[in-house]
């Protein structure tokens, strides 16, 4: 019997998860996130990037990226994400992306889509990216633009999606659930469906990179979190809720220091996009493998990720449903082992929805 497209997606997802799991256990970073610029043509109210450190710094050149991609490939990286800021603002973006392709790295591009006209869509198509991800903040221009603070950005986004989809480029829309869009999630799902895109919601807003907490004021409330997990998420997942993971992996709450690595526009290397404690600079590092395995900062964060279960999650109800981020905990509470409100509220509603679905046999 011919395999249905849906089954193919599941097979791919499982293979992707297995790849991540293998990297996880062997401590091989399968994914690298490159913030290629902090410049942006949007001004999102809850953006985690702070641009205060930019003065006097020079973004990495294409030849810096060539060297960096070789180094991360040798470390074991398979997926490279080019993000920002808005990565497409870089005039040499396609040279950078081309350099990643030359190293046979699978390319993901996170963009707001503002610059993707038909011509740019065709150039992106030529890169054969694994995926293009774009943020959508509402189901209409009013809501979306309340967040981006750029007039016309909603229509431009939809046009960008059309331009890419017309060329059969895979697009994943992602949306942070906020006070602005909490009543529009079904509308956003509908847009994704109409455009032939996948959709991912993130119920948690991160503080800014400098630890400033103002983005959290835009977090959604409990009632809407509950609605998301009980009503919307099961529909998106074809009536199946995500299983609680019980596997043979080395236990760690996330892949920090284990499955991924982050590099900013100036070459500074961080354990992840949220934990901004510099471990070196990729332009200066002679042996990235040595740094990866022996950095004191990485060893510290690996240890933290492994101790979260015992020190935090086992002590609270619904802890095993908690998508706990030690970096956000550290930013919000000053302590990576201190539970922050968004994590437990989200876990509680996820758990209730999961139990309900299980009783219904879904």
């Amino acid at each position, binding site marked *: 019997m011919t395999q249905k497209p849906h089954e193919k997606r599941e097979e*791919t997802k499982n293979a992707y998860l*297995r*790849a991540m799991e293998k990297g996880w256990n*062997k401590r091989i970073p*399968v994914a690298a996130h490159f913030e290629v610029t902090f410049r942006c043509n949007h001004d999102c109210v809850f953006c985690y990037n702070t641009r205060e450190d930019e003065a006097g710094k020079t973004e990495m050149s294409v030849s810096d990226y060539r060297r960096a991609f070789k180094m991360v490939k040798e470390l074991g990286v*398979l997926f490279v994400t080019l993000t920002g800021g808005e990565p497409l603002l870089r005039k040499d973006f396609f040279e950078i992306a081309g350099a990643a392709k030359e190293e046979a790295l699978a*390319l993901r591009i996170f963009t707001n889509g503002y610059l993707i006209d038909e011509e740019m869509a065709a150039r992106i198509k030529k890169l*054969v990216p*694994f995926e293009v991800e774009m943020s959508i903040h509402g189901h209409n221009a009013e809501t979306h633009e309340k967040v981006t603070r750029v007039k016309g950005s909603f229509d431009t986004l939809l046009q960008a999606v059309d331009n890419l989809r017309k060329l059969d480029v895979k697009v994943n829309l992602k949306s942070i659930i906020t006070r602005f869009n909490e009543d529009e999630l079904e509308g956003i799902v509908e847009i994704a469906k109409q455009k032939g895109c996948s959709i991912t919601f993130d119920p948690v807003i991160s503080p800014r990179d400098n630890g400033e907490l103002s983005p959290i004021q835009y977090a959604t409330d409990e009632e809407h979190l509950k609605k998301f997990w009980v009503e919307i998420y099961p529909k998106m997942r074809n009536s199946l809720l995500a299983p609680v993971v019980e596997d043979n992996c080395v236990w760690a709450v996330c892949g920090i220091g284990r499955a991924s690595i982050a590099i900013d526009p100036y070459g500074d290397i961080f354990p992840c996009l949220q934990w901004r404690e510099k471990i070196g600079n990729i332009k200066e590092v002679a042996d990235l493998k040595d740094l990866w395995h022996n950095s004191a900062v990485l060893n510290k964060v690996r240890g933290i990720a492994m101790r979260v279960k015992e020190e935090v999650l086992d002590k609270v109800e619904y802890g095993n449903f908690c998508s706990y981020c030690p970096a956000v905990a550290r930013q919000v509470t000053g302590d990576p082992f201190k539970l922050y409100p968004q994590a437990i509220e989200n876990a509680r509603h996820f758990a209730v929805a999961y139990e309900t679905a299980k009783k219904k046999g879904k």
Partner: protein
Amino acid sequence: MERNDTVNIKMVIPKRNHDAAFRVIDGEAVVVLPSRSEVKILSEVGSRIWELMDGKTTISQICETICMEYDVSPETALDDVLNFIKEIGDEGMLES
């Protein structure tokens, strides 16, 4: 298959799809096919054959390596390699 066909096919150089990204992790090749938005994980032997398909190596040479490394007969190696090539070719993992 006639003898001449077998000889000819053994001289073919199979080539991985040039868009495919892959890493061998823990003895298994994780292959990403971006044009199809797919990720595949190959078996241990499949991973070794995949690694050997460097665009320079003939099927005959791949079979010789598989014979040595897995202690199988030349006939078994050829059957396995050809089946594998057919399978991954159908999945769009090879240059046509």
